[in-house]
């Protein structure tokens, strides 16, 4: 496995773990006066997920697959 792909895989697993924010479970406080703390955490999580996928798209893009698919015209299905 290539190094960037491995790094992406590790970060993906880390993000999946970070989604389970048990430490926010009983937090009812409001941040900025209106945003529940647990909701703000998951909002930031969404932004982090977008940043992660931007990183993946730059460093782990499947160029070989792309080139293969765009290499020739449609060959047609067999069934």
């Amino acid at each position, binding site marked *: 496995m290539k190094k960037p792909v491995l790094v992406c895989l590790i970060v993906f697993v880390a993000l999946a773990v970070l989604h389970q924010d048990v430490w*926010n479970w009983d937090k009812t406080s409001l941040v900025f*006066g209106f945003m529940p703390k647990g909701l703000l955490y998951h909002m930031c999580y*969404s932004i982090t997920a977008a940043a992660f996928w931007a990183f993946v798209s730059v460093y782990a893009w499947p160029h070989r697959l792309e080139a*293969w698919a765009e290499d020739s015209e449609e060959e047609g299905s067999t*069934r």
Partner: protein
Amino acid sequence: MNFLQTSLPIGASEVVSRTPLYVIVGYMVALFALGWISSRLFRGSSKDFFVASRSIGPFMLLMSVFGTTMTAFALVGSTGKSFSLGIGTYGLMASSSGLIHAACFFVVGLRMWSFGKKYGYVTQIQFFRDRFESKGLGYLMFPILVGLIVPYLLVGLIGAGNYISGVTAGMFPDTFSLPDKILPNGKEIPHPLNGSVPPWLTGLVISSIVLFYVFSGGVRSAAWANTFQTIVFMVMGLVGFLVIAKGLGGLAEASQKALEHAPEKTAREGLMTPAHFMSYMLVPLSVGMFPHLFQHWLTAKSAKSFKLTVIAHPLCIMIVWIPCILIGIWAAGLHAAGDLRVPPLPNGNPNPNAVLSAMVKTFMDSPLLVGLFSAGVLAAIMSSLDSQFVCVGSMFTNDFVVPLTGKDRFSDRQKVWLGRGFIVLIVTITYVISLFRPTSVFSLGVWCFSGFAALFPIALASVYWKRVTKAGVFASVIATAGTWALFIHDALGRKAGEQWFGATKHGEYLIAGVMPVTFICLASVVALVGVSLVTKPPSRETVEKFFP
């Protein structure tokens, strides 16, 4: 601000402005026009009808993929779920989807697109037929996938019907009068939805409009309409959120009210457990198996078109869901304080599907804005329905009729018409069911997604595991269908306390404290891997074809 001043007292009779309805009608006319314009670009071939001749660029791909995944579930359902389950609703479906959906697009979608482009696939089942060297697999998967799409279509029709009846209450007291309602405590009250546009009419109108533009130009029309509708519901959602917040005295005052009267909704303690929360993470895997999303992937002009979708999808989800979740908890606080009336279910509990319309009707003063926001809600719903309509038509033609009768039995034009005929049949069936089975939009959506999620291991294995076999896939599909049917019967068909496997708490059916999707996925994976390992591997020719 006194909230009671803006709420209608129970049974109040007053002249209700019809402006919102006129705005909605105007929006429908605009969609008709868009359908007509995009039909001018329709090239008449089945390839153009089903995959838009693989010509869709990055922005339209993002809008159509995102618009397709956001339905009544995202707006009506999430607000209602947040009303009953609090802020945890966002983590259950939205933030996890930001990670998982994009993973499905990147890990599976890109590969499926490349095979579609290389070998000319139009549907998901065509790919599976070739990949697993089995015509019979298509005949097994076709009814199961269509059967799973029906509840998804129902989510849209029920959500639209509930929303519009809530927002039009009192507009037509003579035409659509409803008898008084008797509460479980014996008290008689005027029906809160008296004089509203009935769900059967809303369902009929939106189905007809979507059918019109889908028939005009197939998936190309759907992509155009999705782009337009996704922009509408994102913009109107944000505007509506800010207006509702203003009507409540500002963001801080609205949230403070929730904290005072329904503090449990601003956290997760007591409403869900970490195991329940974690098991929800399997549900978004469904996008990797949605046949209508597969079809949108195939419309991409190039692999690069996927980049924007993969990156921006988590942000788009956030933009739509955060306001809905906040509106839901605000509604919970107001309801607990007695400042918001939500139309009740027959059992007397507030109808979660009616929470959003109750908030809009109560706290949005301008009828014009109510109309625009409502158009946005319908836009979200219709932007999913259109893709699902096209998809069932293309599956019927390409996965059932053509394999059964041969490629040359019907002309290209006849194939398009066959697809259209089947779409009408399925829409009619769904429409009739929607009239008799009103249920929670969120729960219905989760059941539908759970079935698709459990089929996802097949999609993943098909592009990454050379050893997966036809028999393994058959076993996995049967295991998924069997466990899904068993659990849904237990959850919805049996009374609380008499259920075989799980129990319903806070409106969630859980087995051993986790979502049923956990066990359905487990059955699917065990069957797929176990049977594949003991049966004959696929031919070398097939492996070389799909693992270049």
